């Protein structure tokens, strides 16, 4: 029987990890992720989780240790945020290229300088090219559910790629909601034990994580790339299985809301999606045909799905909490590329906000839709809620 409790995003995620039964956890604290490793430590103490809990001395070691554990075939978990993610950055392509299906939680937090502990998505977005699957969740319930589902996706034979699940720092990690926790029996029915040939084996010794010269190096990377693309379908498969066992479904790499006949569509990721949905409701009530696309996966990038979901929309806006300095929001770049590849010409705006944890209000989101409707702005890149404007 499932159980309903009042949990923060971090706590909910830890519950999801408990249900996945990782055999090795490497733990290092960083705000606002820390509650996750604290919760897991308590679970190990209470024996509700049987896991080797390793107190590593840095994030670089956290992921290096996870790679080591995965290299002998153990199901492995670690968690980080912001500077920690950047500090372990060397190990990210290592884990991915080695095809080690590690699951890691990242609490989305701004990166220094200036120092700031609050949420934006510049940390994980900066690592999009590291070869990890990246999932973004909207609320604590989805955080728990995707903690468990991430192992299914990562360990799937056709994928075998690590997964990073991103939770907006504080807004999600520290906010309490009612969360339904599946029973361990349900979790076991959903997630099979981890079995792999991609490991060092005492009976059949193997040399792993080797060097490959120019003659074959590219083939390894293209195989990895193709496995990433497979994850788009595996996410659907996982969603259906999870729906059958647990009774909750989220759809695939994108979630759509009133897009069938929408004229103005906003693309979001993470916790802002809930408010954006409310804004769509209000606008619809006042006769504006607004719609919403929620990105659940950013790598692999569901570009074709986005273009398809847009239908006959007249304008689209990409709302994101990151900026690639000197260019534009990175999600916007990806979205526009998908339009071009699909020969779809459409006015496309970029709404950049929430950096360093700045609040984004309902009014500002409504304003985004109005900007899509009016299209008076010559500049396609708009900043939300800038306190000091030059000039």
């Amino acid at each position: 029987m499932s159980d309903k409790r009042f949990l923060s995003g971090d706590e909910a995620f830890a519950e999801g990890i408990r249900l996945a039964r990782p055999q090795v956890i490497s733990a290092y604290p960083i705000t606002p992720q820390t509650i996750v490793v604290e919760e897991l430590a308590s679970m190990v103490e209470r024996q509700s989780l049987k896991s080797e809990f390793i107190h590593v001395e840095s994030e670089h070691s956290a992921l290096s240790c996870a790679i080591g554990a995965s290299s002998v075939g153990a199901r492995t978990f670690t968690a980080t945020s912001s500077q920690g993610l950047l500090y372990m950055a060397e190990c990210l392509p290592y884990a991915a290229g080695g095809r080690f299906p590690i699951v890691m939680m990242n609490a989305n937090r701004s990166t220094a300088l200036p120092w700031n502990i609050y949420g934006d998505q510049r940390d994980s977005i900066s690592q999009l090219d590291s070869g990890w699957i990246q999932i973004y969740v909207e609320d604590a319930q989805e955080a728990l559910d995707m903690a468990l589902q991430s192992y299914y996706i990562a360990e799937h034979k056709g994928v075998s790629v690590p997964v990073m699940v991103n939770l907006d720092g504080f807004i999600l990690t520290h906010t309490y909601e009612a969360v339904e926790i599946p029973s361990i029996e349900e979790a076991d029915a959903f997630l099979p034990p981890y079995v792999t040939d991609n490991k060092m084996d005492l009976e059949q010794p193997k040399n792993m994580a080797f060097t490959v010269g120019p003659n074959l190096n590219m083939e390894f990377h293209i195989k990895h790339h193709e496995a990433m693309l497979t994850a788009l379908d595996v996410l659907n498969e996982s969603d259906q299985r999870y729906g059958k066992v647990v009774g909750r479904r989220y759809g695939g790499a994108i979630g759509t809301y009133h897009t069938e006949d929408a004229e103005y569509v906003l693309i979001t990721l993470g916790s802002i999606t809930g408010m954006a949905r409310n804004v769509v409701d209000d606008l619809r009530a006042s006769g504006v045909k607004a719609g919403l696309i929620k990105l659940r996966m950013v790598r692999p990038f569901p570009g074709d799905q986005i273009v398809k979901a847009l239908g006959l929309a007249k304008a689209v806006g990409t709302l994101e909490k990151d900026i690639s300095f000197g260019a534009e929001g990175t999600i916007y770049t990806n979205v526009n590329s998908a339009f071009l590849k699909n020969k779809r010409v459409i006015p496309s705006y970029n709404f950049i906000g929430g950096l360093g944890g700045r609040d984004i209000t309902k009014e500002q989101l409504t304003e985004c839709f109005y900007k899509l409707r009016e299209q008076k702005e010559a500049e396609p890149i708009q900043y939300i809620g800038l306190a000091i404007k030059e000039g």
Partner: protein
Amino acid sequence: MQWNAKNLPKEELFYGHKACAGCGGSLATRMALKVLGERTFLAVPAGCMSAVGFVYPQLCFGNNAIISTFAGTASMLTGIQAGAKALGLKDYHVLGIAGDGGTADIGLQGLSGAIDRNDDVIYICYDNEAYMNTGIQKSGLTPFGAKTTTTPAGKQIHGNQKEKKNMFEIVAAHHIAYAATATIGYMEDFLGKVERAKQTKGTSYIHVIAPCPTGWGISSNQTIHAARAIVDTGLWYLAEYYDGTFHLNRKPKKKNQVEEYLLSQKRFAHLTPEDIHIIKEQRDEKWKQIEREWEYERVK
């Protein structure tokens, strides 16, 4: 178990690699694996041993082996050990073999963490006293006076001006289960220490001097000679640390032959009598401390 040339297993676990002629590091690796055997999980970071042994599809280890990130040898060992334990594997060893830069510089944080946790792993540092894989740059274990590409020797500077980092005592200060110094010049002593590490529960660390003919500027048939002379001259020492105490295993016989040791190597060819005097003083200072504080005990 006393290992020697007669009873050492014939089986080669590190074979067909691309190391230079006379490479001390590859000899240390090959011999350590003979003691530890096929049921050894080995992690090797970026450096000569991974560069010469892991070029797909020519993979040179007969046992399970994996390249770690440069800084990640010890943390990867931790993970392998934790994973193996969680999976209930039996009768295996977890070994890391890293060079001097990978140990004393970039890998020190991870090594300290593993010792602090007392993870049941063996860590061997093969010390050739510089970053050799990248072409002879100064590391934290490059000795005073040595010429490297980043500590050139000229009129103003006579090579490296810093003393070698004291890894053995840094490691011992963690109250590690077992630590030892060794050299491939005294192979039976080294093999005995690997055996002792194999028997030790908790973390073991062995620091083995492994000359690099290319980096030291000696001919490839002089590796063992140099590895022996460094101990005979007192510039290196054979010692162990266990149960909270230091034990010296061998007293140097030819302390007066420092010049011969130094000047036979191109990396020291530029040294002036004053430089050599400084090196001797540093050595004598060290030996005063050893004789004052350490017990003398031949290795068992």
